[in-house]
Structures are given as structure tokens and as C-alpha cells.
């Protein structure tokens, strides 16, 4: 079971509200799709500039593996406060700990509504369907 303290998107991002800020990341399923369990297959992660305003659903970066490139999309709107620079040099963090150390972007959300996003249980079912 994936962490149920946060919400998930159909594009395999997660968003966690923490007081006045929110964190974005991608799920273990997304990482697995990109690198098939081989963390060495991840080659690049592009994260946004601090201060950038993101709309919900907007592409804020890209992640690239040996054979594929995937967009990173904002689950909710807000202003970028900080990005996780550790990821850019240590992409393996995304394989080993996508839900804690693997956070990508910290934002100040426009509002704290997570309506329309999936719970952990709903995401679980969504992924099971997709993997079938």
C-alpha cells in the first residue's frame, strides 16, 4: 500500500499537504515504468526555477531514462518555493525512496483543495487496472 497521507494523479504524481506548503513527487509506479527497476537507467531530472507559478496540470519538468522521457505535471497550482537539488545528482533516490527523500518540488499552493485527485486506495486500483 502506498502512503495514504497524500493524493495521487493519473499521471503518477503525488501531492502531500504539509501546513502551508505542498510537496510534489512521482510514484514508485512511475519510476518503475521509466527504469524497470534499474535505477541506473535514470539519466536526468529537470525541475522548475524557484518563484515560478504553476497551474494545476502544468508541466513543470521532465524526467528521462535511458529509453524514455516523461513530463512532470503539477497536481495542484501554486508558486515554487524550493526544489530538491539532491535528486539532480542522485537520481537513485527516486528508486529507493520516492515518497520521502524523493520529493521534487515544494510549493505554496493557491488553495489547499485536493478535489478530483485519487486517494492511495483509488490510485492502487487505478495502477492495478493499468498494469493488467
Amino acid at each position, binding site marked *: 500500500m502506498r502512503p495514504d497521507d497524500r493524493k495521487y494523479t493519473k499521471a503518477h504524481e503525488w501531492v502531500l499537504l504539509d501546513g502551508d506548503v505542498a510537496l510534489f513527487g512521482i510514484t514508485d509506479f512511475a519510476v518503475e515504468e521509466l527504469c*524497470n527497476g*534499474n535505477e*541506473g*537507467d535514470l*539519466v*536526468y531530472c*529537470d525541475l522548475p526555477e524557484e518563484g515560478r507559478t504553476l497551474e494545476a496540470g502544468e508541466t513543470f519538468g*521532465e524526467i*528521462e531514462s*535511458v*529509453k524514455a*522521457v516523461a513530463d512532470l505535471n503539477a497536481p495542484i497550482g501554486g508558486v515554487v518555493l524550493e526544489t530538491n537539488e539532491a535528486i539532480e545528482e542522485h537520481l537513485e533516490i527516486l528508486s529507493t525512496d520516492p515518497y520521502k527523500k524523493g520529493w521534487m518540488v515544494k510549493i505554496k499552493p493557491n488553495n489547499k483543495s485536493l478535489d478530483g485527485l485519487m486517494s492511495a486506495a483509488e490510485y492502487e486500483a487505478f495502477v492495478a487496472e493499468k498494469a493488467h
Partner: protein
Amino acid sequence: MDTAALQETPLHDVHAALGARMIDFGGWHMPVQYGPILDEVRTVRNACGLFDLGHMGRFHITGPDAIKLVDKVATNFCAKIPVGAIRYALFCLENGNPIDDVLLYREEQDVFIVVNAGNLERDLAHLQEHAEGMDCEVVDQSRELDMLALQGQHSEAILQRVVEDCDLSELKYYRYTWGTLCGIPNVRISRTGYTGEDGFEVYIPPSSSKQVWDSLLTHGADLGLKPIGLGARDTLRLEAGMALYGHEIDDDHNPIEAGLSFGIRFAEEKGDWLGREALLAVKADPKKQLIGITTDGKRVPRQGHKLFRGDTEVGYVVSGSVSPTIETNIGTAYVTLGNEEVGTELELDINGKRQACVVAPQPFYSRTRK
């Protein structure tokens, strides 16, 4: 992924059992990797790899006009290929652009042809159209004959362990012979491949595919033989400077500018053939050229990235990969003439961000040019 509509090779379930990651490749459900792609590339460069090529097309052109037909539709000079030899060629349209690139296996009267999976139907229709009025038959043997490739420096040693009645050390590069493989008589064995390594391709009855696959893996285990997916195959061919239809060549990219002149014969004796006039014009006045690029940046060149020289757009990427063999990111690209010299500094435009790259000699890797 809806995989129900995809075709499966005789080894499909074997790949699944090996834990392969399967993808849709030209309408086929194929293994892209069994483990890390870069490790699979290294396995082929340093030891040996086994590939399922069941998805590729295999035609037999038979009858008195077989060679005449091939010399009309293919760019190489089939009548001049020695019996027992194999040559690279392209099927071009009148405009000089190819519908496929192929290997021609010259027989006494007939010609065996290996084509790309994704172009099979179009190739078949094309050949049949041009065979009208000729005394020959175009037979699609793709489902009667399966195809495996063994690639890497230990290929000969491993294959010889399961081949009777023929000495593989006497089979030269781009030649084929017939042998008994795993007890199956009259198997076509060619010294060919798409990796830049020494290796073989074998054509076997689909009912024997699993037996041959398992036997090869067993007999090659001590020499490091492993199954290799299509992901590594793409990197291997790119490192070795080999074109892939849909990337370096396609309906809009002719073989002259792609650097494939070695597969084209303009000799008068060959007579007229499809695309000859157009390709002569390109040869006389080419507009662009395929080049190799390397980049020290983190991003991998990908098909569609634009190339700039200063502020001027000079070309676009058609293939790219991480290269574990030369330990940098590599790609192929078309540039307008004047930008093709090795060492020319260019920039990739990756979604608006620039990354430096440089024109590199081709091929990136050659086993004979250490």
C-alpha cells in the same frame, strides 16, 4: 496497455517467463529488456547475446525472374552478388526515398530477403505489384520460418556447439551456409547482425524455436551468453553506425544523404530500377548529410530535437541513446551541408534549453577499429 491486438513470436511466453519488460514494437509484443538495458549492451560487446527476431519479415523470391525482380526494386545489384553472399539494399520509390531497408541473400536462381517487421505488408504489396508479368513468385515465409540472432565475440564458439556438419570458422562475414542446428537439418545460418559485433542469424521452424533458444542459452552460459532485448539492440546498432528505418531513413529521407551509398549500385548493367534517377540527382547535389553527435551534457539526444549552430537552425536529431561503450550520450542527426565536419560544435535544443554537442566520426564504435 491493450496487448490483445499485438502479434506474438513463438518465444513470447519464454520472454514473459524470463521476466522481460514487453512493449508494442511495430505491432508486435516484444521484449525491450530482461534487465538493465546498458548491462545488456555491455553483455553483447564483451561476451554474447541472444535475440528473438521473430517479428522481422522473411521473403523468398523464387523462379527464373527472381533476380530480375530484385534488381528492379532494390538498390543493390543482385545479379552481381555471389551465390552464398548477402548484401544490404533498400526498396525505394521513384522519388528515391525508401519504403524499407533489407538484406538480400543470393541463391542460385532465387533470393531470400529479410525485411523490417513494421514494413512487411507494404514490402510484400510492393514486390507483388512489380512482379506482375514476371516469371517469379513472392513468398512470405515469415510465419513458416522463425529467426534468432546470436551476437558477440563468443558467437562462433557457442553456435558451433549446437551445429553439426559445418565449420563456422569458414563462414565469412555477410555469407550464409546450411547446417544441422540442434538436430534440425538444413538450417540457414548467416554471419550477419545489427550490433557491430561478430555474430550469426539463424532461420528455424517455429516449432523448434523454444528448443533452440533454450539449447543456445544452456550451451553459452559459461561464455556469458544472455538474452538481449530490443532496447539494447537499438543502442548497439546506433553505436555501430547502422541505420534504422523510421529514424535515419524513411519516406522523407533518402539513402544517399543517410550515407548508405554502399548499398546502391548505379551501374548501367543493372538496368533501370525504382528510384535510380532520383537518387542520381541527390548524389549530384545533396542538400544535407547524416552525422553523428556526442554530447557531454546529461540529456540524451532524441528524435526531433533541433540542432543549432549559434543562432542558426542547421538540422535535427533522428536517433539518440546513452552509449555505455563510448561512455557518453550519442545521436545521429541531419544537418545542412557545411555543418557536417567532425569537430563542429553545435547545440541541441531540448524544449527550449540548449545543450552543447559536437559532430563525431561515424561509426561511434567499430570492433575492428580499436
